[in-house]
């Protein structure tokens, strides 16, 4: 490992896991203290390793020091008596003969803690947007600054969002447990929605920081992958389907932005830059997802994404994409799916027939509605096209989006 990137990479990989281990030991009420302790541990590591050299197993060092710091802090703190001791006695029966004050650091325990944390952070009583922020902070170890920069907002806003989420955890007395089997499908559904939002936050974020956005996607994929390998959730087909969908989408990550951060539209992407290995992995997950004939929104979206992994335009491709969007919308409405369906409709039946379909969507004021109509009217009624593209330009929030629209508008002025 490159030593200059050692601490950031360890932070990204281990922060969330260590917090999860500490919380699963001492209760979710310990979340803030755990986060502080882990940050402190990293700081200690930076200083100690700087002076004495990096230990042979840096991750193990971090776990051990974080554990000792947690235990020391608990011994000092009155919180231990009021909050944690109760949890220890109620939640974690110690039967293996180890001291009640010790922390189990086996790999199994670490994974188990992370899974519990996933279900806790994605609890249905927390608003979806706060779940995503909390997941980014606690599960993935992104800093407040990084989260704020991805959302194009301020530290204060993210802090407020996190504060409210944690308050809700306390108020609802949510424990760091797996859901009961009877609730598993609906609880897992909340988890998948949040992880999909987290992925999309990276994939579609207007933030210019490409490395950070890719990290968001990879973190979402890591967590879904964990669900595909856990005994509790691996048999559930939606999980495999979401994993397939993310693989197909992520395969285009590097191709969809240029060197200067500009957006490259699907048709113009260099498909040599698409990650074939990721597409192959996606195919494997998709086969697993389809073995029991279940059909969730993730199956349909994965199938749509699969058709997009082949850039060659055929009638068959677009007819299938349209059919899949029809099914997806019948299952669950969303404006994005409705607009994408109109686009697919135009590819199958032509722009003239697609224009009334698109206009009937009543999404006036939506950026993608106007940019789609701008494209559909191009070559049919250029005045209308310009009107819609100008509307879209006013609505576009980020520089790359604006650049794409300006380029389209320029074609009309010459």
């Amino acid at each position, binding site marked *: 490992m490159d030593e200059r990137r050692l601490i950031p990479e360890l932070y990204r990989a281990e922060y969330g896991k260590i917090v999860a281990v500490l919380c699963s030991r001492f209760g979710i009420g310990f979340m803030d203290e755990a986060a502080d302790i882990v940050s402190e541990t990293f700081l200690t590591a930076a200083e100690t390793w700087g002076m004495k050299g990096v230990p042979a197993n840096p991750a193990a060092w971090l776990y051990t020091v974080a554990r000792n710091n947690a235990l020391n802090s608990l011994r000092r703190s009155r919180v231990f008596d009021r909050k944690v001791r109760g949890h220890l006695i109620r939640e974690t029966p110690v039967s293996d003969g180890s001291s009640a004050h010790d922390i189990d650091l086996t790999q199994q325990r670490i994974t188990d803690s992370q899974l519990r944390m996933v279900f806790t952070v994605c609890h249905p009583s927390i608003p979806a947007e706060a779940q995503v922020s909390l997941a980014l902070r606690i599960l993935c170890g992104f800093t407040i600054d990084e989260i704020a920069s991805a959302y194009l907002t301020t530290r204060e806003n993210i802090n407020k969002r996190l504060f409210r989420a944690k308050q809700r955890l306390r108020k609802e007395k949510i424990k760091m447990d797996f859901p009961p089997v009877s609730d598993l499908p609906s609880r897992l559904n909340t988890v998948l929605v949040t992880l999909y939002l987290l992925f999309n936050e990276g994939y579609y974020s207007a933030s210019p920081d490409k490395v950070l956005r890719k990290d968001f996607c990879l973190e979402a994929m890591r967590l879904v992958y964990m669900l595909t390998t856990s005994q509790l959730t691996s048999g559930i087909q939606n999980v495999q389907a979401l994993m397939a969908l993310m693989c197909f989408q992520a395969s285009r990550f590097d191709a969809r932005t240029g060197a200067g951060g500009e957006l490259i539209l699907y048709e113009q992407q260099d498909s040599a830059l698409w990650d074939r290995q990721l597409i192959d992995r996606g195919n494997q997950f998709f086969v697993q997802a389809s073995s029991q004939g279940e059909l969730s929104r993730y199956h349909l979206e994965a199938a749509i994404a699969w058709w997009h992994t082949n850039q060659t335009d055929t009638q068959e491709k677009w007819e299938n994409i349209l059919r899949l969007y029809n099914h997806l919308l019948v299952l669950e409405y969303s404006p994005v799916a*409705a607009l994408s369906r109109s686009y697919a409709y135009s590819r199958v039946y032509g722009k003239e027939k697609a224009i009334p379909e698109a206009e009937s969507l009543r999404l006036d004021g939506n950026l993608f509605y106007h940019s789609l109509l701008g494209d559909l009217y191009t070559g049919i009624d250029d005045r209308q096209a310009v009107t819609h593209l100008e509307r879209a330009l006013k609505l576009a929030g980020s520089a790359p989006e604006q650049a794409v629209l300006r380029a389209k508008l320029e074609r009309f002025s010459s």
Partner: protein
Amino acid sequence: MKEFALIFRVSENGATQVTPAQMQDRMTSWTNWMGGIAARNQLVNGGSRLGVKGSKTVRADRSVTDGPYAEVKEFINGYIIVKANSVEEAAEIAKECPILYGGGKVEVRPLVTPENNE
């Protein structure tokens, strides 16, 4: 928005010869029609097709006969539920229904709810 049931009625002697290609087209026009309603967020319930074979009609005297209840050789073969601002708007949706190409009819009926019980 009010909710309406769109009820598809077809007549028995509509069983003309249909080629596989025509069947494929018919399927596509149904998914496009349903997808279009859903894309405008007006689909409340995808409803169902109602079978003819294996159906029975039970009358007040408890007699049971084979087949669906049919008035003038016409029976119900399916339904969906949509939402629309008015019955006129719901009728506009029905105008695109593929059942019409086969000579069927669509009945547009408001759902009776506490708010809408005329």
